[in-house]
């Protein structure tokens, strides 16, 4: 919080000063107790700069609407204040478009100012804050007319000057520090508050839809005439909604110096780490993970030193303490690293890394994590960068369907190039690039879509007019239609651009329908349709996402499609900044079939089920393989997921050991289950099979869709890596270059299990292979296509006992059977957390990085408290800071 300045005059102001939280001596009392709201904030001036002629808009709402002091000699700037003592004007450098657009839409406003008038004789009214075009033409003006405050707000029922106005009583203006707030709600109820109390109220009916779009914002004077206001500004804020009486009171209580910029608030919210903690979590922990934990982890503990945990790391190893906080020279860790003795293999630390390590030790070796999880450092910070997200093919199809009611699935699947998987998902934004084929496809698809639409009926939803005039009605139609199609309000630039198409159509003798058709065709190809455009620019800190951006984030996370009208309404009302209201929206949306479809997409991506369609095992080895089985396996897993997550609403961890599955008669036979023919005799129909009496099966890992990842040979390596990466989020280094990775075939007397055990016994291989191959031991009885056997083709007896080492754990846990392994996995918090990571990654469309780890952990804990179900996990993701905030990039 900034310190306030001693600007309150002595004497007669003493009483007032004692009641004004913004006044000298009182500011600390308000510190942090009453935050200012940012919901609906459009522009904010806190006069923080002391020099130059620019007053910066610090709302964080783009584009900034900065103001310029026309005559700096008539103004005096001090930190947090701007005193006007002569003739000048503080004028926005551009049209106040963001304010005008927002208020035209909302019909609501709050104009807030902390000011101290220089005298009570200023008249005209003298302009304190004005959005106008001259002395008789305005959208609004907050002014001082002698000893009264006077506010003019233009509606369709007032004149162009915003008259009749609302005034306070004569004598209400004092030359004291004053908190003046004007609010108007959509019904037309307007109020003026002074120092937190409502003191004037009236009804100003009509709408703000006719507000002039070209007006600029100004302080201290009118544009073309002399309506000079004199006094001192401490804060001016404008909102697109009417703050409630308690909010106004809270702002008053918070004082003129209350932290207001969302960037600051958000920054505090997320960046709660001290510099020392930040150093550890962003630099030292990854450094240790990359260079030391391969040997000094809880399981290996070389030299009895475990650097993965705070307690063990500080305790030291067989050579005693290795970390002496504050003293690098006495720390064995430093000595070993500096001399190059550690790490013993691979690249030594770079000079820069060494410097960091030394700085950290000397600064007290702050260790702010209980455990260092190498998995969270898999990707560097760059991978967490925000990329604009192109709609994936399923998202495009859903967006078209939801927006205009046309099913384009068949054509989109045919024409659009498929999205390519990256980092485990095909919705990874950095990989969603575009090629000529996309552009051609979007153009062609747009043509097909409008060809199938009842364009006139669609247009009628937004406007009764069928006029081709581009001045008013067509612009209104474009604006309303665009808000739905482009998932948020349009800027003037866009309205103008799209309306222009109507002009061209008209000039070629076309009609209204044709104009709307082409406009929709253009919108369907515009960047705001094809991409999810969000503001990414700012000061580099974390900002809340805007209302409409949030609406899209919610809808694409939950539905994989665009916001519906209710979400857009909530965005317009700034409700989506409130976590509880967001939660309520998610609850509502989970009832919609789109939510289930989206979840199925997630599972398909996570387990890469699309590969099953092309599964072609060696026909000599598996002569009974039916090509339709691959698709059956895919359907089995999806139906199984739907049952667990949606029908039974069970915790997602149950996916690992739920004792039932779904199969076609064909697949049931393949699995050697007692075939239950479908009641209608349809051989393609899935039937639910209870597996409580089939100990070998039950859970995802026992389904053909997952078992086939090991290929024809049922590779222990591939299956083990799948469990390690996709269920346990473990890390393992790549095999050394040049290593012969040709699978060793089983033979009589040598089963795959035995081959794996030999590898693990080999010291050159064991470091890595011991981490993942045992994870597949429990699956040995399933062959490459998921059929259960007690013996392999060479007559070797197969086993399903083994042991599992959860990443980070010190000791492995033994299991006697495949079923026990499934239970261990289902009960493991690590597996639950991994599902959270996967789902969060899918929701955000990017790999998760170390910076995200704490938030993901929070999501996981919150979801677990909610029962660990799909719904609770999804809700936790949507209401997390990862979804509600965005890290901005500097210019």
């Amino acid at each position, binding site marked *: 919080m900034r310190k306030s300045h001693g600007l309150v005059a002595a004497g007669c102001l003493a009483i007032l000063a004692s009641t004004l939280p913004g006044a000298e001596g009182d500011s600390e009392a308000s510190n942090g107790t009453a935050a200012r709201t940012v919901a609906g904030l459009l522009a904010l001036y806190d006069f923080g700069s002391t020099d130059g002629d620019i007053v910066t808009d610090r709302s964080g709402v783009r584009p900034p609407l900065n103001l310029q002091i026309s005559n700096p000699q008539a103004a005096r700037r001090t930190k947090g204040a701007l005193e006007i003592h002569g003739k000048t004007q503080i004028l926005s450098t551009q049209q106040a478009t963001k304010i005008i657009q927002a208020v035209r839409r909302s019909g609501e406003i709050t104009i807030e100012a902390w000011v101290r008038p220089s005298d009570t004789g200023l008249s005209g009214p003298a302009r304190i804050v004005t959005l106008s075009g001259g002395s008789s033409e305005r959208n609004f003006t907050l002014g001082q007319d002698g000893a009264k405050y006077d506010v003019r707000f233009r509606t369709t029922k007032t004149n162009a000057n915003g008259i009749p106005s609302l005034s306070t009583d004569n004598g209400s203006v004092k030359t004291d520090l004053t908190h003046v707030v004007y609010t108007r709600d959509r019904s037309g109820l307007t109020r003026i508050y002074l120092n937190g109390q409502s003191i004037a109220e009236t009804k100003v009916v009509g709408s703000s839809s006719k507000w002039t779009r070209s007006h600029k914002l100004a302080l201290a004077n009118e544009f073309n005439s002399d309506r000079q206001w004199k006094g001192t500004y401490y804060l001016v804020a404008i909102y697109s909604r009417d703050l409630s009486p308690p909010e106004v009171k809270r702002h008053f209580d918070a004082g003129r110096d209350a932290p207001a910029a969302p960037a600051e608030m958000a920054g505090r919210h997320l960046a709660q780490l001290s510099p020392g903690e930040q150093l550890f979590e962003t630099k030292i922990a990854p450094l240790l993970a990359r260079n030391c934990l391969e040997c000094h982890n809880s399981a290996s503990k070389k030299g009895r030193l475990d650097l993965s945990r705070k307690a063990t790391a500080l305790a030291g190893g067989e050579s005693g303490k290795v970390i002496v906080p504050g003293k690098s020279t006495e720390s064995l860790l430093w000595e070993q690293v500096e001399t190059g003795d550690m790490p013993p293999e691979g690249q030594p630390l770079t000079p820069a890394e060494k410097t960091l390590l030394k700085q950290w030790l000397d600064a007290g070796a702050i260790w702010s994590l209980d455990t260092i999880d190498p998995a969270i450092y898999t990707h560097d910070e760059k991978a967490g960068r925000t990329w604009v997200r192109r709609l994936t093919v399923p998202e495009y199809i859903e967006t078209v369907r939801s927006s205009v009611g046309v099913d384009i699935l068949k054509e989109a699947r045919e024409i659009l190039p498929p999205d390519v998987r990256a980092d485990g998902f095909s919705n990874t934004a950095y990989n969603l690039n*575009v*090629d000529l084929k996309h*552009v051609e496809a979007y153009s062609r698809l747009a043509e097909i879509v409008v060809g199938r639409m009842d364009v006139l009926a669609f247009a009628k939803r937004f406007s009764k007019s069928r006029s081709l005039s581009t001045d008013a009605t067509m612009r209104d139609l474009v604006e309303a239609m665009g808000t739905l199609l482009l998932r948020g309000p349009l800027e003037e630039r866009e309205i103008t651009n799209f309306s*222009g198409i109507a*002009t061209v159509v*008209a*000039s070629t003798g076309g009609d209204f329908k044709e104009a709307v058709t082409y406009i929709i065709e253009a919108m369907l190809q515009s960047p705001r349709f094809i991409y999810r*455009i969000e503001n990414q620019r700012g000061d580099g800190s974390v900002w809340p996402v805007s209302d409409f951006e949030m609406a899209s984030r919610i809808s694409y996370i939950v539905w994989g499609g665009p916001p519906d009208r209710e979400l857009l309404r909530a965005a317009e009302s700034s409700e989506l900044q409130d976590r509880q209201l967001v939660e309520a929206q998610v609850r509502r949306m989970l009832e919609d079939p789109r939510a289930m479809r989206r979840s199925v997409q997630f599972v398909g991506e996570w387990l890469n089920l699309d590969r099953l369609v092309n599964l072609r095992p060696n026909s000599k080895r598996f002569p009974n393989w039916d090509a339709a089985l691959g698709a059956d396996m895919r359907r089995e897993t999806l139906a199984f997921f739907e049952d667990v997550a949606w029908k039974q609403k069970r915790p997602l961890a149950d996916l690992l050991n739920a004792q039932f599955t779904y199969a076609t008669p064909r697949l049931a036979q393949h699995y050697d289950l007692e075939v239950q023919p479908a009641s209608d005799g349809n051989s393609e129909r899935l039937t639910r099979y209870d597996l409580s009496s089939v100990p070998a099966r039950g859970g995802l890992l026992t389904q053909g869709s997952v078992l086939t990842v090991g290929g024809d040979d049922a590779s222990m390596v591939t299956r083990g890596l799948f469990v390690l990466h996709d269920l346990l989020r473990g890390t393992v280094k790549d095999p050394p270059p040049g290593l012969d990775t040709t699978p060793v075939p089983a033979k009589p007397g040598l089963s795959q299990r035995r081959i794996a055990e030999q590898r693990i016994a080999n010291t050159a291989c064991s470091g890595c292979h011991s981490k993942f191959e045992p994870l597949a031991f429990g699956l040995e009885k399933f062959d490459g296509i998921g059929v259960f056997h007690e013996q392999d083709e060479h007559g070797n007896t197969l086993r399903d006992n083994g042991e599992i080492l959860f990443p980070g754990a010190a000791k492995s846990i033994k299991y006697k059977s495949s079923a026990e392994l499934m239970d261990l996995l289902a009960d493991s918090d690590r597996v639950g957390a991994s599902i959270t990571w996967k789902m969060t990654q899918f929701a955000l469309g990017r790999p998760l990085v170390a910076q995200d780890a704490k938030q993901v952990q929070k999501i996981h804990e919150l979801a677990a408290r909610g029962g660990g179900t799909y719904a609770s996990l999804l809700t936790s993701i949507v209401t997390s800071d990862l979804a509600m905030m965005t890290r901005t990039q500097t210019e």
Partner: protein
Amino acid sequence: MKKTRINRRTMLKGLGTATIGLPLLEEMTLSSVAGKAKAEVPIRAFNIFFGLGIPAPLQTEGFQGVLEPLKSLGDKLLIMRQVDQVRCDEKGINAHYDGASGAFTAEPPDGEARAGGPSIDQVIRKTHYPNGLPVGMVPTLIGGTFFRRSRVGRYVHSYNMDGTVAATIQEKPRDVFDRVFGTVSLAGGDKDFRRRRLKRSVLDSVVDDYRFYTGANSPLGAASKARIADHLDRIREFEQRAFSLKSKDSNAPDFPPRSNVPHGGPADPGGQGIDITLEELTSEWRLVADLYALSIQLDRVRFGSLTFLAAGERIRLTGDYEYGGKKLWSFDDAAQHNASGDKGCSHEWWHKFNEKKKNEQLRAHAHMKMREVAYFLHRLDDAESREPNGKTILENSLITISTESGDGRHNDVKRELSGVFHAITGANGRFKTGQIMDVDAEGVDVYNTMLDAMGVSHRLGPVEREMQPVDGIRT
């Protein structure tokens, strides 16, 4: 002025210095083209429109005032004053639109995209070419440089017999070029061309939108911006493939570059007006005018219309205006109005017209418009335009020049739609030239007299109305 003038001679010499790349088409190198092979002069009719009009009192000053730039063409023009278009008034709509629709049709508008009747050029075309124009010609070419576009009548000035627009307006130099010299105009009909035009306008809007997200005001960070820039590149590639000309000549250059002035929606942001320099305006217009004139010289076009600034045009013009080697004025509308948006546009000078005052700004604008209209007319009067009968295309054709009103103050419809400036050429000796004449007649009668002289029996205006010939204009 940056541009290089395009005329037939430079086309024939090779196109290296032309501002836009023009493919060297076969017919441009022929010593004679269809129409020119005959000694007979073809019937041609064109309507030239300029926006906002000339207040009647200023017309009385003749070539001493704002009409000065027409003086050099005075011998070849009949300037008509006191032409009344009051019958074109449509209740509830201001005179910009009514008057503009009435120009060349003498009818009030019929809705937003139709005129109340045909325009004179089209009536003449229908009479003289009842079976269509010779193969390969563009039936009607409509072009122009304009920005205000809320209604079609503001800028389109050729209408079919049923009042619908006679052709798609070409508003960019490359559009005019494409329409006249592109293979589509030879192979395909107007319908194909229209569809292409509309498709391109959709793509133009899309390109504009993508461009925004790659520009300085983009909300995107560097990586995302690069992704959108990639997309934009692909769209341009797509555009090249989908819309580039397939010229007859293998050496033909690529599709001409984009125009530098706003078109489509951005040209008319909700009636708020645009900022434009005199150089931008006249460079664009002169290129369109050159291409239009070239089309006539090459006998690819015999009918149509050309618009220099729309009715009720809203621009905020800046730049020094010179005429005859002297600086006459510095345009700076917004500053001189001390206003922004629509209130800062040149249009406001017409609202503020006051006979008792100097009206310097209005005069400068009107003078400039006459200079630019004269530019086009001169292009049809040069050595390249000399025809077998010894006269120039300008002299041989019927060219009608008009505008929307005789007063722009919107407070008296009668006054507004009276005294609407008109000028015509001699049409190969059919009309008097070299005069400034107070005709004191209705537009409908003037137009019908012109039609009569052109050997056209169809009459504009209400069927039952008896024509009152304005014989004074005929030779």
